[in-house]
């Protein structure tokens, strides 16, 4: 026992010593990013920027909600220059709490469509995540499909699969439905969904798509890149994409995006980095690593993603997803959508 303890004591000492070292370097040519977009999706792009410009990028990852609390707690001493998330609602929330600063950039305004950025320039979309309807081609005639709202009709009783309402993608979908249809109509639709469920809600989109393939249900709502990952491995996966609401408001999209922090010490460099990220080359790369859609319309799309055809996206400003999210969550609770 004593030597186990001395071993542990030595390990503790070693760990404590390394604890003194990691103060973030404040060299002029370093940017610090707090990112909810995970490492394997951002590091390749960050590395490309460093190779091109010599500017080093240090980053830490975590849930957006946690990173926001961290920014708030650190205040003016925060080392962060940029906050990056995979959901517009969190960017809206961060801007509401005064954690992001307005940026004026002609390049960003040209490259990022107006509905995918904050009207005040506090955050900008960098990739689109389309959330649409998926169906089994064996059991569903795509002519029977039209809108998210129509999935509430009795024809789909016992045939619908949904992911849990805890996931932010569904919260923003319902928030955008509220923005378009109002609370009453949206609540009716959500109640209809719940009544049509084939099985309890799923914890993730991949499991939901697998359930459609296995025949547990016939239709469902999911983000396209989860589908992309599956068909990349199994091209004969028996589930197809249907672009929802093409005649009534467009497919719901969320964004992965970023904003410059209120207390950034490198605002110019941070803006330049955002501008670079919105350029066509970086855009293709940024979106393609996760089979998402670039926000910049001139950027090339991944071939598999391209094969699903083009679609009309919803043009309501993404800020609405954040503003209406608490209402959406409460609506889903009332409707019994777990």
């Amino acid at each position, binding site marked *: 026992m004593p030597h186990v303890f001395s071993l542990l004591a030595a390990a503790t000492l070693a760990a404590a010593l390394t604890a003194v070292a*990691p103060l*973030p370097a404040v060299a002029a040519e370093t940017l610090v990013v707090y990112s909810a977009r995970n490492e394997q999706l951002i590091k390749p792009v960050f590395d490309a920027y460093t190779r091109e410009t010599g500017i080093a990028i240090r980053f830490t990852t975590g849930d957006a909600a946690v990173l926001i609390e961290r920014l708030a707690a650190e205040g003016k001493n925060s080392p962060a220059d940029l906050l990056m998330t995979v959901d517009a609602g969190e960017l809206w929330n961060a801007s509401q709490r005064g954690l992001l600063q307005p940026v004026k950039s002609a390049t960003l305004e040209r490259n990022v469509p107006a509905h995918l950025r904050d009207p005040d320039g506090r955050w900008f979309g960098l990739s689109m995540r389309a959330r649409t309807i998926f169906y089994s081609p064996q059991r569903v005639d795509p002519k029977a499909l039209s809108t998210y709202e129509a999935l509430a009709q009795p024809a789909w009783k016992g045939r619908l699969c949904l992911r849990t309402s805890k996931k932010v993608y569904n919260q923003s979908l319902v928030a955008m439905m509220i923005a378009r249809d109002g609370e009453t109509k949206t609540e009716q639709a959500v109640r209809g969904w719940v009544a049509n469920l084939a099985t309890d809600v799923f914890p993730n989109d991949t499991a939901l798509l697998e359930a459609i393939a296995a025949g547990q249900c016939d239709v469902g709502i999911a983000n396209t890149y989860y589908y992309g990952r599956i068909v990349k491995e199994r091209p004969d996966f028996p589930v197809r994409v249907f672009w929802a609401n093409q005649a009534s408001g467009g497919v719901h999209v969320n964004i992965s995006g970023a904003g410059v922090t209120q207390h950034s010490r490198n605002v110019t460099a941070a803006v330049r980095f955002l501008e670079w990220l919105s350029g066509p080359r970086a855009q293709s790369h940024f979106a393609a690593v996760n089979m998402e859609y670039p926000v910049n319309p001139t950027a090339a799309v991944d071939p598999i993603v391209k094969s699903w055809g083009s679609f009309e996206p919803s043009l309501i400003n993404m800020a609405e997803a954040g503003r209406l999210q608490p209402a959406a969550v409460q609506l889903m609770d009332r409707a019994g959508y777990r």
Partner: protein
Amino acid sequence: MGSVARRSWAGAALAVLALPALLPLLSAVAAWAAPAGEVWAHQLQYVLPRVAVNTVLLLLVVGTSTALLGTALAWLVAAHEFPGRRVFAWALLLPLAVPAYVLAVVFAGALDYAGPLQGWLRQAFHAGLRLPPIRSLGGAALVLTLCLYPYVYLLARVALEAAGSRPLEAAQSLGLDRDTALRRVLLPLVRPAVAAGVALVCMETLADFGVVAALNVDTLTTAIYRAWYGMYSIAAALQMAAVLGLVASAAVWLERRARGARGYAAQRPAGELPRRRLRGGAALAATAFAGTVLAVAFVLPMAQLVAWAWKHAAVDLDARYWAFAGRSVALAASGAFVVVIAALVHGYALRGERRWWANGLGRMATTGYAIPGTVLAVGLFAPLAALNGWLQDRLDALLGAAAPQLFLQGTLLAMFLAYLARFLAVGAGPVESGLERIHRHLDEAAALLGVRGVRRLYRLHLPLLRGSLAAAAILVFVDLMKELPITLMTRPFGFETLAVRVFEMAAEGEWQRAALPSVLIVAAGVIPVVLLARRVAHVA
């Protein structure tokens, strides 16, 4: 040492130890100042009644089933001889090394409608054949039981082995048969250990988010995250966490009071517990029972994980993984050391502590284990960042532009403080039940011989506590290997561990790619578990 001096150091020690757990609680109390009335009204009407029932049910089922399973396995291994016993003795601890959320994902993948087992059943037998749904309260209770029973098993086994043969012999010499002697004499002796194990299980169940999220059960924890992530109300989330923490403290305190009335200290821990040799059907049944638990909780899920990991290893596995694994082990080992030392101080300070406030502080120090990790991390982070800001202002005023940038909240110092807040309970449980088995008469005898204070600790208590300390170290170590939210939030830039890798993959739903770091967490955790588990067997 005089009793007044003793009393003051004990109170001070408890206050210091309670501080890391109290800071998030204070953040939570401060959060009450922020208005979250609308969120609360909504939660009370639509969410809390349902999730409160779920939470209580889950606690009851998981608490009862881990108590039964853990104690039964401990009794089987400690008091019987059957084929494979020596291997089971340590192997039954292995589920501890598997992160609970990972086990939940494996179970969901394997047992859901679209999974391989049900697919095969529908093809082989009948298209309408269904298994009970794994995404359910029952499924979550099953997974949590399989993950958490080792707490009870380990503590009960250490206690049984420490009780030795004397109590059993005495009971049998008074005419009780072996089974009655077990029930009436040995079981009460191990009750503090079982209770300590179940208390840990319940706290971990209360704080769990990974399992219930993966298996779709709404509990108080998921309601907390819904208020925070969904309705952007960190205030409501912290307030709910504070209530959860207070309920947990009260429960722990009540349990202690109920137990405190009776004395469970063994008079003379001596003699090795005799193991009865099982034969024929009984031996087969014993091996089959232990083997089934091990297979379902560890072997089969690991086989699935390894298969997934293998698929992605060609792309994902690179030299960085050595560094990830090294950091995970170093962090867990040093964290375990800090926590066990703190638990020892905690146990001593509480020993014989009669003052209510000191007792209360001692209990509060361990409630961090019942609070969801992310909420605890944020609650601790905010005051640390504020302290850092205050120090920075002083430093700037003093040194002007030459002042260095402080970054207390993003160093291992913050990490260790948070680990202490979260895991003191895990270290304190075994240490306290170990201390309880050392009778006060022994201290008095030592005092008569002039052995007091630090010498008494070193020469008398430490040898008697070895088993408990090793158990505490194992439990904290494997918990820290798996720990995610605190490490994620407080790690220095670029500091990646295996658990952080799991997060990176799982954050975008790439569960199969998360298998590789998960397998390595288990692999890196298993060796120390086996080594230490053997120590427990030797020294108990």
